[in-house]
């Protein structure tokens, strides 16, 4: 699971930062390391900035950075408070679908990333995760 999949209010344990290069290092410097516990506090409108609580303080990251952090759910994510707010039905259905799709769930989120739509300059300073490349070739 990736941090970007976590609904508001969900708790998690970090397993790894898969973003490479400087951003990945900065996230690790800021406390996103294996075993660190945290929670998603809230997210901005339209998949905007996400507020994450980690190591006792709050940090803002974008959806893109969150997608580069592998996490393990703590507790039941579908019971997180976001699941009972607006679009709750949509959100629950999405989580259920993702659970069914298992490995394939990564691709489900791809249309949220403008970068992959633009497609230009894939060799910028971001590291890639494997599924990004897979999507490009597909």
């Amino acid at each position, binding site marked *: 699971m990736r941090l970007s999949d976590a609904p508001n209010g969900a708790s998690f344990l970090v397993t790894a930062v898969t973003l490479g290069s400087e951003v990945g290092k900065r996230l690790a410097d800021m406390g996103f390391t294996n075993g660190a516990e945290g929670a998603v506090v809230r997210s901005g409108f339209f998949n905007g900035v996400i507020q994450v609580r980690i*190591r006792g303080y709050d940090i*803002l990251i974008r959806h893109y950075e969150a997608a580069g952090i592998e996490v393990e759910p703590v507790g039941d994510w579908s019971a997180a408070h976001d699941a009972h707010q607006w679009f709750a039905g949509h959100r629950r259905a999405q989580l259920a679908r993702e659970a069914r799709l298992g490995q394939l769930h990564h691709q489900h989120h791809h249309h949220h990333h403008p970068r992959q739509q633009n497609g230009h300059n894939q060799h910028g300073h971001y590291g890639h995760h494997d599924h990004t490349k897979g999507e490009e070739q597909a």
Partner: protein
Amino acid sequence: MKTIRIALAGNPNAGKTTLFNALTGAHHKVGNYPGVTVEKREGEVQRGKTTYRFIDLPGIYSLTAYSIDEVVARDFILDEKPDVIIDVLDSTNLERNMYLCLQFQELGIPVIGALNMSDEAAAKGIRIDDALLSKTLGLPLVKTVGSKSTGIDALFCAIDDATDDAAIAKSDASDSAQKRITYGTEVEEKIAAIEKMLDSDAAFAQKYPVRFLAVKLLEKDADAHKRLEEHSDVSSINAAVRKATAWLDAHFARDSQVVISEQRYGYIRGAVKESVVIETQSDFSLTEKIDSVIMNRFLSLPIFLLILWGVFKITFALGEYPMGWLETAFGFLSDAVTNVLGDTLLQSLIVDGIIAGVGGVFSFIPQVVILFVLLSILEDTGYMSRAAFATDKILHAFGLHGQSIFPLMLGFGCAVPAVMASRTLKNPKDRILTILVTPFITCGAKLPVHILLAGTFFPGNAANMLMLIYLLGVIFALVIAKLHKSTILRGEPTPFVMELPPYRAPTALGIWWHVWEKTSQYVKKAGTIILACAVVVWAITTFPQYPSGEGDMTDATEVQATQAALEYSYAGRAGKAIEAVFKPLGFNWRLAVATITGFPAKEVVVSTLGILYKVGTEEDEESEGLREAFASDPTMSPFVAFIFMLFTMIIPPCFAALATIKAEIGWKWLAFEFVFLLALGWLVCFAVFQLGALGGLA
């Protein structure tokens, strides 16, 4: 008599500057770090026979630098080698704050930890056993409260202990010397091997802390690799580092740079577990309550706009009074000078040139100060991170970054501090982009031009016209940002990683300090560039003097006489000569001259128009005489006035702003910006005027 150089370092939001103020009192001076415009704050304190020189470094999260601020802090520590580092630690957030501390401990420089904001921690139920923590980490710790000057004496004692040779020798012998983290057997092996290779060049090993550099090389730190170039045996060390990182990557099944971060956090977790007890659940309640409204996904943006609107409202409402007083004061000054000197050239220089030019700028200082006070309050309370949260999505859509919001907001006051504030942006392209679009934001100096034109030609709608021009400025900034981002500054979107500090009450001293820094830049500009320009404008509108006693001028009114003199002057001649360039925009020669004289500073546009339309000594945008003369000019119309406002908004900013842009991003970008804005301004106004002319507006 000895001098100890102490670097004050720590995470942003750890209360570093407050502690610096408490340590140094009022005795500090602000300079710049060589080559960059990051302010360097230094303060000296005399105690007994020792001089303590404190240097306040920009806030940093890690010695693997990320933004320019962090580069400056790291370079200072590595190159200037302070005698002692005081690491200011936020006691309410020890885990992440200790992360930087561990890196300091590897430098071979004595480190003292200041457990700052210890009162806040106590209130939150965080109990820190500082003696035990100090023992675990092998580092002197002092509990401090910067805002109440608590723990200052203890800090001075700790500095004395850390630099007292006898004490150090004793502690070395007793084996309680400064400890440092060990990264586990595998990593330590690699570090030791690289350390040994680095040691082979004695001069290099003398210059740099070898262990620190070895760790940084394994962390794939770009700067460490750059410094390695100075080593006599670069290539074999590089090969060894590559081999070591590849091995670590494989062994830990993740990036070695992350492995080292994990080890550090693991070590901290161990130390903190023993000595920090959190009695009550971490309490975010007040901040959380406020944020649940202010950072609500639907309300955050409207609230941001409301706050921005409120800031303007207060600025203009409050600023009006002192502005009037200053104008009156300058009026008295002009009269006094005229009384003493009579109708001479010197009087004309002082009154028409210097007082009119510089005074015009000074009368805007109250508004600029009020705006900066309000923005500093927003900054110090922690609202700016919320503003970035609220606006990032929109700014991102236009190629900007959420962190661009603070520079852009400062741009409403003055472009100089706004351009400087962009250095918190990590990515050079984001910085350049933010700097390039900042001039579109209507600053305090362009305001009088707009007030004059809107007030004269749109008497019933002046306020709406002002709003429109402000709004157009923002729209231009966004659209041009998008244009640059998809052409010359194309690139990957940059990451957004930003701490969200809890709300804190701003301190009066902190606000004063911020406002002083920003206002002094504005005042400096008034005292130098604008003074020079005012004299130049005066000279070109005065010389060559109209030959007196020439024929038909005898029965002319005074106004006609001065207008004739103006047309005869260099400015008048130049204006007529370049009129052709401005004709397609609908501008007469007076507007052309005002544009030219307004290049150094936009306020000069108003005083130039004043001089050109009616020998104005103290013309300002409220002046009835100027407005009448201006409005009765047959070549002027509301439409032309609007185009001139548009033109003023787009064309290059004042010299002071241009100089700051040059200092931040270099000549090349400055040249580009200048030509681009000039061409854009001309083309947009040309298009608008010609379209309007077709539609019968002109």
